[in-house]
């Protein structure tokens, strides 16, 4: 069972998703459309199963956020969409033979850095905090989808039965490249006691 978040979080997350989209568009030099798929509190088990029990692998770049805003931010894509994004940044057409090498990983790590920082800065501004939000360098991984989601949810410094989660999908015009940004603020940041009812 999922629960709606407080209104101030909806407003902040939508603004952050919009600014992250603008940053990605500037970075790629192409229009980017966004779809906010989730902004809700949900049980731990539901959050870890968010991407389903799919057999395939996904790639993700994760950042830990500390300071005035705390949580885990991760940019996820399936192999084909992630490799298409890397090919675009490396100035070549995506092909069926593309594989994850150091250049491709570096391209998506840098993309995560750009859209992640835009997102975090927008969120932090909305909290009127006096200290900065500090993202860690992005961490690349490629693994089974359920394993990735488990680890993201369980990487929270304080384990909770309920997880507050936002998910925004970015689609790049004229390209198969796409990715999702998932942000999990720590339970105290999201005021889950109020949100979960």
């Amino acid at each position, binding site marked *: 069972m999922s629960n709606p978040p407080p209104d101030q979080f909806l407003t902040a997350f939508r603004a952050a998703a919009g600014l992250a989209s603008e940053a990605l568009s500037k970075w790629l030099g192409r229009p980017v459309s966004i779809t906010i798929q989730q902004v809700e509190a949900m049980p731990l*088990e539901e959050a870890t199963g968010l991407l389903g029990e799919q057999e395939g692998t996904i790639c993700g770049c*994760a950042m*830990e956020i500390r300071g005035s805003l705390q949580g885990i931010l991760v940019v996820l894509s399936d192999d084909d969409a992630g490799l298409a994004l890397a090919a675009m940044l490396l100035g070549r057409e995506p092909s069926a033979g593309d594989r994850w090498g150091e250049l491709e990983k570096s391209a998506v790590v840098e993309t995560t850095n750009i859209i992640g920082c835009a997102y975090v800065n927008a969120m932090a501004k909305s909290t009127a905090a006096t200290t900065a939000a500090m993202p860690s360098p992005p*961490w690349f991984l490629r693994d*089974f989808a359920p394993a*990735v989601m*488990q680890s993201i949810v*369980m990487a929270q410094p304080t384990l909770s039965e309920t997880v507050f989660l936002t998910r925004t999908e970015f689609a790049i015009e004229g390209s198969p490249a796409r990715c999702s940004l998932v942000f999990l603020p720590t339970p105290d940041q999201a005021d889950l006691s109020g949100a979960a009812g």
Partner: protein
Amino acid sequence: MSLPETFSGTLAPAATTTVPIGGLATARRSGSLRTFLGSCVGLALYDRRLQLAGLAHVVLPDSSGNGSPPGKYADTAVVALVAELSALAGSQTLRLTARLVGGANMFAFQSGPPVGDQNVEALEKFLKQADIPIVARDCGGGHGRRMTLHTASGQITIESVGNAPKQL
């Protein structure tokens, strides 16, 4: 009706039960139990003589009194799995062994003791209390795992991205 001398076609594969996060399942004699693991830990209990298998997908080390679903917590998973296997064994004595898989720490930035390590330590403690020996394990590391427990043989297959499958 007589049987043909030769058979062409596809034999139905043995049933595979996927254990969801926080879930548990048991099986007897055939089929297999499967789960995906990141920082969570797969607890496999097996009785070779009776060909009884049980698998729990443990998420957290301690239920703190909230043991639902029972497979989710190390303390309640051991108790619930033993109870289900005992029911399947009926009047026969269970001789269980345990194997642990998973408990990865996939992000280098994670601070504090990784929850995967906490889950493994908790399971060690509760299995000792239940007098069930741990005979093998494949835990830790920075990668996820797909764990399949084959009921007839008791063999566990562990798959991970970019590596050859291994048996436990």
